[in-house]
């Protein structure tokens, strides 16, 4: 059992507050990704869970046990670092065996465990090499091996793929997903790359400036973002944000007026009349339709092969991104009429908070 419970965690570096009252429950054996822009505190939170950093106030429980004041090695967690952190003067075998030899494990047992891990990660050929003679991907596997060999309850990953090139990153991502299936433990993974987050996670924790913005499954965050920050962070390309005003509410629908008085009707009672709101539409949810209410003048078109993106300016000047199929036929300076896919218009109040959709 390796569930984690974080209660009221606070941390500051001198005067700067880095973590504000973090409360988080992580389910047993789940794969949780901490994601957010730089400086949001995701690495700090991870390192605090690891025990590399001290918390200021609050508690951390692993499996019901209070590990808040324990040293990292006593917490039954292990960590994979961004720059692999392999001991340069030791061979791969010695690197992987190191935590076990520190724990004074019996030599035969160590050898067996190292063998098991190196087979799992296909490192058998590399055991006698030193880190300097390994490629980036190989080093990362060794780092993972060193983390696995201790059989911890929790695996912590601190941006492990950031130092790899794009192609390798995809490959390693698949390997980590595979690893997850083979091992029974909780995974906590930090990244700034939302693609990694979306593909690997059971649960995503979005952080900003030391606070949790939203916790949920990838699809949940995609379909029901809690605020403009999460909406803009998850999903690529970014969601379009268009300033608007609530014109009228009629029963189960609301009418929004854009800056040029274009009216859009959306289901749901959205705030009060005359309130300033933000309309959010993902590029893939704009539908070119002859009777579309929104009209954008196409400024740029990018053709990527499988999909194309048109950047169009609305009447009030807001530039929106529209995803188009490859055979779109849209030309520059053309006025593109758009409508919003069914149920895909998000409305956020003036503080950025999502308003309920019907």
């Amino acid at each position: 059992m390796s569930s984690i419970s974080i209660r009221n965690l606070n941390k500051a570096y001198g005067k700067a507050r880095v973590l504000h009252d973090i409360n988080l429950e992580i389910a047993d054996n789940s794969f949780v990704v901490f994601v957010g822009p730089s400086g949001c505190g995701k690495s700090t939170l991870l390192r605090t869970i690891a025990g590399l950093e001290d918390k200021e106030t609050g508690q951390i429980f692993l499996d019901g046990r209070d590990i808040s004041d324990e040293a990292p090695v006593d917490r039954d967690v292990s960590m994979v670092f961004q720059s692999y952190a392999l001991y340069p003067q030791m061979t791969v075998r010695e690197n992987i065996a190191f935590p076990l030899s520190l724990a004074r494990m019996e030599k035969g047992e160590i050898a067996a465990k190292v063998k098991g891990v190196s087979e799992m990660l296909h490192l058998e050929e590399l055991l006698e090499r030193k880190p300097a003679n390994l490629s980036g991907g190989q080093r990362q596997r060794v780092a993972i091996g060193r983390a696995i060999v201790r059989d911890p309850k929790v695996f912590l990953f601190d941006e492990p793929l950031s130092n790899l090139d794009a192609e390798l990153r995809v490959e390693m991502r698949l390997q980590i997903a595979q690893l997850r299936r083979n091992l029974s433990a909780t995974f906590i993974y930090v990244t700034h790359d939302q693609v990694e987050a979306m593909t690997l996670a059971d649960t995503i924790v979005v952080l900003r400036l030391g606070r949790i913005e939203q916790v949920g499954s990838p699809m949940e965050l995609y379909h029901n973002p809690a605020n403009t920050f999460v909406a803009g962070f998850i999903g690529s390309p970014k969601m379009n944000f268009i300033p608007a005003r609530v014109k009228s509410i009629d029963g189960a629908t609301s009418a929004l007026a854009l800056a040029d008085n274009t009216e859009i009707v959306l289901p749901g009672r959205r705030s009060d009349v005359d309130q300033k709101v933000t309309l959010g539409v993902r590029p893939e949810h704009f539908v070119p339709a002859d009777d579309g209410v929104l009209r954008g003048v196409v400024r740029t078109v990018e053709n990527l092969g499988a999909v194309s993106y048109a950047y169009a300016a609305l009447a009030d000047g807001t530039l929106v991104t529209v995803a188009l199929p490859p055979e779109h036929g849209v030309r520059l300076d053309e006025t593109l009429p758009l409508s919003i896919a069914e149920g895909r218009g998000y409305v956020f109040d003036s503080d950025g908070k999502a308003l309920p959709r019907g």
Partner: protein
Amino acid sequence: MDRLFKLSKLEQALVQLILLAYTCVVLFPIGIAVLNSLKPNLGEVYKAPFGLPSVWSFNNYATAWVGANFQGFFVNSAIISLACVVIVTFCASTIAFVLVRMPFRGSTLLFAAFLLGVVIPIRLTLAPLFVIVKSLGLLDSLLGVILVQSASMMPVAVFILTSFLRAVPAELEDAARMDGALPFQIYWRVVLPLIRPALATVALLTFVQAWNEYFLPLIFLRTPANYPITLGMSQFRLQFDVQWHLMFAGILIMLIPTIVAFLLASRQFIEGLTQGGVKE
């Protein structure tokens, strides 16, 4: 950049003149010493100080070595210097490690205390220092000199090592911590290899300063048998003062190890100066 610093032929000639002139100033004493140390007798030194020796008397060095009992002094110097290097590199590195990676409530104060030692030289505190050494029964002992000299070099060493370690990322040490390594193991297996360049600098600076130290041994040593080479020179001088050729030989015996070491590691020496740049 190059165009600013390039020289025309005339300028080059002028520059060479000046630089050669200063070279003469620098090499004159050493050159004279070498030249005259090889003369067979005093008379030749007087008659023709700039002339070549009639007989190349390398045995002057042997005479000086034996006559002045250099062997004993050499050994003492070596013992003191090597002991200082070992003590200082070990103690300063452990302190730097704790101050940078395991800070505690008094760390800044402790660092400031060391920094104070950098700026206030130990010579000033001669009187109380003597009191302490005497009361510990360490007067006239090599151990006493070793401890005092090591202590005097700690501040600069701590400073150099903390500066260096601060610039090294702590990730490898974090990994070791996660693996369960205790501080001493982290220090020994992870940190020491990482700070090798700075350790080399500290070792070099400490060795040179310990080897060249005159004042502290003067204060704390009484028996000539304990003298390092710097004090031994004074003895030698009393004996052989008038015999210039032997004196020069003796001085060169003292200088040659340092010169050789310097020529072998000149870059390290010069870099060490700018790094330790605070103390001589």
